[in-house]
């Protein structure tokens, strides 16, 4: 059976966009304020931060890993950019140094996993504690101001759309293109898919494993800088609430924990979906409890829908998913 090119089937990574359109439709009917201009403006910058984080998390998951240190690195990045900018007097230098340090933090994660052989959850749990500690020591427990120029940039809009959103789009598109089109991307996917085969065929597998944690660290750094810039200051707890959403976005986007294939575009779609879902629940007048409930159901449906044939067989034809 041939799939016609002009009418592609809904692949495993296509579902999320259908879901997103359906959700927008549901908002239009049930909670129009959720997709009103004011709501979208307040939502987009935070959605962009989540997208940036989730892209990093996706890369790690594609290498059969999981990064529990994401919240700590985001927090650290906000504080570092404040510190480095103050030290060097240049926001640009601050951003570059922050990305460097956070990339190195990611590389530390990768080395513990690929070289020492600690399971990813435990390794990043431990380094997460270390990075949080460093963040606290750096800040002395209080908030640090972000330089006005970085603030202005993070809060700016171009053609009516927040600049942060463009940053997220650029990152998603470039990571996606690199993974799809380059030799490096192909090797990256191969190592995640079957590390033993990749090694037997002459790939330096540790390079790709460690590299993915490193690049993820840089993604978190950009997210952390964006978040701190948008809020205007960096706090030692800024990133705490981002661990679970970053994993949830990967899961809902459809990148499997078994490694290899994945889609940062789908992850980005899932990050938008989850943010809009939150917004819709709020607009309907429900609180954080219902937000969490909706997210949990979204995860279960997202995972089940891709296994629909097997699940249907298992339940003897009953296809109820809630």
């Amino acid at each position: 059976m041939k799939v016609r090119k002009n009418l592609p089937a809904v692949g495993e990574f296509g579902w999320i966009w259908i879901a997103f359109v359906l959700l927008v439709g549901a908002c239009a009917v049930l909670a129009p304020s959720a997709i009103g201009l004011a709501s979208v403006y307040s939502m987009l910058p935070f959605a962009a931060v989540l997208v940036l984080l989730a892209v990093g998390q996706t890369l790690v998951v594609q290498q059969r890993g999981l990064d529990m240190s994401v919240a700590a690195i985001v927090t650290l990045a906000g504080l570092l950019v404040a510190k480095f900018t103050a030290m060097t007097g240049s926001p640009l230098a601050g951003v570059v140094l922050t990305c460097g340090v956070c990339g190195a933090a990611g590389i530390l994660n990768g080395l513990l996993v690929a070289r020492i052989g600690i399971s990813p959850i435990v390794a990043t749990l431990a380094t997460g504690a270390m990075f949080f500690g460093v963040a606290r020591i750096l800040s002395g427990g209080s908030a640090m101001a972000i330089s006005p120029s970085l603030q202005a940039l993070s809060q700016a809009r171009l053609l009516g759309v927040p600049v942060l959103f463009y940053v997220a789009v650029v990152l998603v598109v470039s990571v996606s293109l690199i993974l799809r089109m380059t030799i490096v991307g192909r090797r990256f996917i191969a190592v995640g898919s079957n590390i033993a085969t990749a090694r037997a065929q002459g790939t330096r597998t540790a390079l790709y494993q460690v590299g993915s944690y490193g690049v993820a660290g840089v993604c978190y750094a950009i997210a952390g800088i964006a978040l701190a810039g948008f809020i205007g200051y960096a706090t030692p707890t800024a990133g705490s609430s981002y661990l679970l959403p970053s994993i949830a976005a990967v899961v809902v986007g459809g990148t499997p924990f078994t490694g290899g294939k994945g889609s940062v575009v789908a992850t980005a779609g899932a990050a938008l979906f989850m943010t809009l879902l939150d917004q819709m629940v709020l607009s309907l007048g429900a609180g954080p409890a219902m937000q969490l409930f909706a997210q949990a159901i979204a995860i279960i449906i997202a995972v089940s829908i891709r296994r629909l044939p097997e699940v249907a067989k298992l339940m003897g034809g009953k296809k109820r998913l809630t």
Partner: protein
Amino acid sequence: MAEEFRLRVEGVSKRFPGVWALRDVSFDVLAGEVHGLVGENGAGKSTLMGIASGALAPDEGAVSVNGVDVSADPDLVRARGLAIVRQEPALMPDLSVAENIYLGVSAERRPRPAQMNAWAQNLLRQWDPEIAIDAGQRVDLMNAQQRFIIEIVKALAGEPTVLVLDEPTEHMMSEDVARLFDRIRALTRKGVGVVYISHRIREVRSIADRVTVLREGQSQGSHAMESLTEKDIVALIVGKAVDHEFPKKEVQRTIQQPRLQVTGLSGEGFSDVSLSIQPGEILGLAGMDGQGKREFVAGLVGLTTSRGNVTLDGVTIGTGNTAQTAAQGIQYLSGSRHRDGMFGDLSVRENFSYRSLLSVARGGIVSREAESAAAGAAVRSYDIKTPGVETRIGSLSGGNQQKVLIAGILASDPKVVIIDEPTQGVDIGARVFIYQAIAEAARSGISFIIVSSDAGELAGICHRVAVFSSGHVVSELGGDEVSESAIISAVLTSGSARKQQDGAARLGDQLVKWFAGNWAPLVTVTGIILALGFYAGISNEFYLTPRSIGGMLTLVAALAMVACGQQVLMLIGGIDLSVGPLMGLTSVVMSFFFVKDMPVETQLVGWLLLLAVAVMVGVLNWALVDPLGMHPMMATLATFMLLQSVSLVLRPTPMGMIDFDFLDTVNTRWAFLPVAALLALVLALVMDALLFRSGLGIKLRGFGSRADAARVAGINPRMMRLLAYVGCSTLSVAAGVLMIGQVGIGDAMSGNDYTLASIAAAVVGGASLFGGRGSFVGAFLGALLITQVNVVTTFLNLTDGWRSVLLGVMIVVAVAAYSRARKMVVAA
């Protein structure tokens, strides 16, 4: 006594996609008889034994054990007294030798767990009175020979009436071979029927009464041993010439500069190997498994470390890793496609072009058109049966997979191609095609090294064959000597018994072994706790006071309890993120039932409700993971959010003060020690006793250690998972009850920090996320350590930041030490 059939296989056929593995095979084993089963690799011996053991269902025919039809029912086969000693022992590495034997026999034969070690040691001594295996040691510390002996002792412990031995002497030293033969003779005197499968014709001749020869899935008849000479057997195994399968060999040209010259290469499992290959030459490597041919190849391509000199076209090259050798044009294809030969989840196109990406890329960017065109061309010219180049390679038949992989290698413009078992799992049509492709590529000047256990294949395509034994090349056959019978006889007559490995243990090894053991985490963690306490004690006089110690232990109780819950799941290789919110939910539920002036009946309802919550959450997690097949992380993340939302609906903000009398009960102290912490410790000790001294605990650990081996031992995976998830949630609810002593109010978020802390405590205490390891006392000590770090840093006036850094460093160091040590021990 009339002739009695122990095992009877009648007219069995089995078809795998593209090939007949067995065709109308019949044979039987009489009481008191040793029946040899011989044939080349792929002749169908393993399939036949799989069917006899009930693991495989035959397409046609029937199997009976002691007169009862047992087709395709492994439990019935075992119950009727058939035991198999597999070439790859089905042992659970994290369990002790005794525990493996214990689980390996049927329930009514098992001793009381307390007597298990003595019982197992006795069985081992029956094998060899001076045996060096300690029944109490873990199996992962045993080498291949010892594991095989354990597997045999396990099979004998069940006092089988039919014993199947699959290549039993492959891993044995000569004195053990003699011992095995003695035991076999003793068994047959008692009327046991023995099936003896082996490559080694001499051994079969010396032990078997009758022999059945299999060739290409068909029986060549059962014969009385004395009626056949060694030559007759070889003739039956090889059969008539099958030359038409193979392409015509090119006559080798005169000596040129060798393409590849290996001089004195040594490494793990092979030593001092020297070989040279001409351009366009096909060199075969023959020899029994474990005699060095595969080990040599692994060293040559850089998968393992090796020493020696390798030159390619006269230039010395490095063989430090596969990237180096592949870049030089040495391409390797593994013999086990699924493990490290192909990317099963990726497409035909991606698998085909992986080695030749540079040729379809410009500036690092792959041209999709060029790539698809090349893959499409390969699909056509190799006649690969696939719906398209975007089809997942894993969904193709073995022959088509292999064609894609070989086409991919040849597209990368290689100089030397090394293929291990080029036609394993490949149907006859594809086989002919692959031989032709290799011959054609050789004509164009590419050199090949072919590793194969099929002598006919080597004879058919190779110009020269090197035979490995004990890690060395013992003979080289060239020209007319390259025939199937010459190769078989060279392999069979080469020294067979293995060399005794020198077992001198150095102090370093001892230390590594200790660190890999069950006690290391307990001793290490206790040591760190005491050291921290000592340092805090001399730095701050207020640390070593009943008040401060009591306060610390109060904090330990809840964390220790939930860490024990996490430990239950980690034993089976799972993880539960929802424990924290479940503790929060516990506090919320309690805040409705345990408030001031509530009657006893209401409290009773509260307790019942807590129990119901524990069971329901456990079942929910299990249902998401097991029947629904979600990854444990995803499943328990979803549960995390669900529980949190339920708690927040019930208590949007912290409310519902718990009755002070109740809180006092939870916070009761015995002298200065909080009873809750003592309770957690006692519980941990009791659960450890169950874990290591009860059948259920051993099963749980065995399942976590190696699920497939556990299934062979009759352990139900679904039940084990259900038990673990419900156990974990029940302990988490209990931890929530202990936590209420600190919180005192219904707070949905109060437990959230416990999720990560419980994981940290369990792994510091020795749990492994891969399952099978750790203990509840370890989890308790892990919890104590985390709390100790928190408390001590306060006494030392360190800030939260330093506390957090210290905690992270400690987790990394502890876990790195255990995991390194465990890896090193297993590798040894």
